[in-house]
């Protein structure tokens, strides 16, 4: 009950006109960015972080969270109308959203996606308020050994789940990220690794310039390489779904919300897997699974509920373990640090109300999403009429400014360009970006905790495998690796077939 009181108090505290104005414009901006193919939630949060540098944490963090929620939702519009996911998180929504639009039910599909996103965010928000304090308390038991394994497990599971058909590429991306994070001054003896006398390299690669490059510049290159998309003129039909139809699907909403949040919590997995897992569960539970992919409303609802539920889910490990649940959450983690918030297991001791403030921010963002999503369905079609040739140079200017503004270093512009080209090349070869980002974030955690652990154990690897939590994380990592190896999976399947 104490938690409920803290949450309601935070909701009331944030219901000030100035705050609500910020919530509205940031959510609208997020929806706009999410709608535009090629612009992702990660880029939106990274660019907005530079704009909110001079704001206080109490103003800036709600703005960034609204951008996050708005962008993941906004991508559903493009998925439904153009069959192009606005963000990677909306790929599952296109499967049934686009057939619905082709059948003249685009308005209804967008209404359904709006309610799905709203409820998904609410379910995730409730789970965040319930789970985060417990997880933070559990995180207090973590020592160097556990943090080392958490970093390794994060990269391995992220590599496995974001590259389901080719986990080797996911792991290469993840370990490349970990390696790139080793450039610059290390945290124990202040030795400058791989810097070769360069003052800029000694500072390491900044997370935000790297992310702006990998998700901004790389996207610009991808979008300009592809053929242009067709503009949409009309949505047709009613927008508001029937309440009876929504009420009848309460179980789908709840299940997708819980699954989405769960996928969000897993390090580096994020919103797209939240949508896919929820979609797969809805299909399995359906009496007409063959209708999925042909305009099934339950399919669209489950995907949109799942991806928006993954947003609060991805914030849970950011708050409690300082480990991001997704690429946008990695930027949010960096923004928290910039604004003086110290995420990690101590959060419930140092700022016990912050978790509930974040839950309240998510509440207001979801309310704004519902209102703006339903009211501005037709006016927002204008966004999809903007030609990419007009939009992309403006986005690139913002990428340059965004990379530079954090530390006023020209080197960060070069980092953005370098990571943009690297991101583009990796994408062309079907390497996922999320493990790379997670690797860059977790590189420092892995390094410090590995060496501290080795010093504490006097060079013995034993505590890495014998302490209870370490042993569980090590076993999970091993299981994830084995599960990702095709020969192992085939051998298990053959054994299962042979057994009577």
């Amino acid at each position, binding site marked *: 009950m104490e938690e409920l009181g803290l949450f309601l108090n935070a909701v009331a505290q944030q219901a000030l006109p100035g705050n609500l104005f910020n919530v509205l414009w940031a959510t609208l901006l997020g929806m706009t960015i999410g709608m535009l193919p090629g612009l992702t939630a990660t880029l939106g949060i990274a660019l907005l972080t530079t704009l909110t*540098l001079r704001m206080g944490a109490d103003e800036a963090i709600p703005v960034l969270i609204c951008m996050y929620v708005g962008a993941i939702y906004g991508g559903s519009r493009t998925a439904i109308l153009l069959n192009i996911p606005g963000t990677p998180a909306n790929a599952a929504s296109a499967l049934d959203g686009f057939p619905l639009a082709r059948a003249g039910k685009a308005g209804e599909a967008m209404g359904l996606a709006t309610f799905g996103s709203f409820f998904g965010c609410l379910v995730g928000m409730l789970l965040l308020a319930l789970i985060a304090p417990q997880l933070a308390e559990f995180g207090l038991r973590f020592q160097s050994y556990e943090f080392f394994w958490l970093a390794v497990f994060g990269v391995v599971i992220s590599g496995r789940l974001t590259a389901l058909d080719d986990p080797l590429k996911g792991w*290469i991306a993840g370990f490349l990220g970990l390696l790139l994070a080793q450039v610059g001054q290390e945290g124990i003896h202040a030795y400058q690794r791989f810097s070769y006398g360069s003052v800029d390299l000694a500072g390491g690669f900044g997370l935000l310039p790297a992310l702006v490059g990998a998700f901004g510049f790389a996207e610009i290159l991808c979008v300009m390489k592809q053929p242009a998309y067709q503009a949409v003129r009309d949505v047709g039909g009613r927008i508001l779904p029937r309440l009876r139809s929504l009420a009848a699907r309460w179980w789908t909403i709840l299940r997708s919300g819980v699954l989405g949040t769960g996928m969000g919590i897993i390090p580096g997995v994020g919103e797209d897997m939240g949508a896919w897992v929820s979609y797969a569960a809805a299909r399995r539970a359906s009496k007409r699974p063959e209708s999925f992919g042909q305009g099934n409303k339950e399919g669209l609802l489950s995907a949109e509920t799942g991806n928006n539920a993954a947003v609060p889910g991805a914030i849970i490990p950011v708050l409690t373990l300082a480990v991001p649940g997704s690429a946008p959450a990695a930027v949010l983690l960096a923004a928290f640090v910039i604004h003086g918030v110290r995420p990690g297991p101590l959060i419930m001791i140092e700022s016990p109300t912050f978790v509930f403030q974040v839950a309240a921010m998510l509440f207001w963002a979801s309310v704004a999403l519902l209102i703006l999503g339903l009211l501005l369905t037709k006016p927002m079609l204008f966004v999809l009429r903007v030609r990419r*040739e007009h939009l992309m140079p*403006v986005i690139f*200017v913002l990428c340059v400014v965004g990379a530079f503004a954090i530390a006023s270093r020209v080197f960060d512009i070069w980092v953005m360009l370098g990571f943009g080209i690297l991101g583009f090349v990796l994408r062309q070869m079907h390497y996922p970006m999320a493990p790379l980002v997670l690797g860059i974030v977790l590189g420092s955690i892995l390094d410090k905790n590995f060496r501290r652990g080795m010093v504490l154990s006097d060079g013995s690897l034993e505590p890495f495998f014998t302490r209870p939590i370490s042993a569980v994380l090590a076993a999970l990592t091993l299981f994830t690796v084995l599960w990702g190896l095709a020969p192992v999976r085939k051998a298990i399947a053959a054994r299962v077939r042979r057994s009577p």
Partner: protein
Amino acid sequence: MSKTPRADLWFSLVIIALAVAVVIESWRMPRFANLGIHPMSVPGLTPGALGAALGILGMALFLRSLRGRKVATATDPTAAEGWLRLASTLAFCLLYAVGLLGWLPFWLATAIFVFAFVLAFTWRARAAVRAILTAGCLAIATSAAVTLLFERVFLVRLP
């Protein structure tokens, strides 16, 4: 099975070369034995281990791509056009970020970049005036809006 076996083969060689270089560089990092620090806290320990892990993954990719058959792909008639657009985009962006910025004031460099980019991609001989006007308006609007918004409203330094 990978959809890009030939690219994987070359990329695996890059990864293996990078991993070997990282392991060698990590080995060459100082051990600070004269300072009496614990040998397990040396700066090269983690990068060396990560380099070795990346080398193993690169080797796995190499062996797999050797086994991979050539995938017959249909030639996309729009592919050449796409690569041309990509090369032009890359050239414009690099010219702006590495060449114009720092040499010209931010607002002018931005206006020139946006104007040139939009004009290059929307140029049609039959509607030249319209293309020039659109590019000009967008260039002025972007340059003014970004400069004012970042520098005056949000007090952010511009390159």
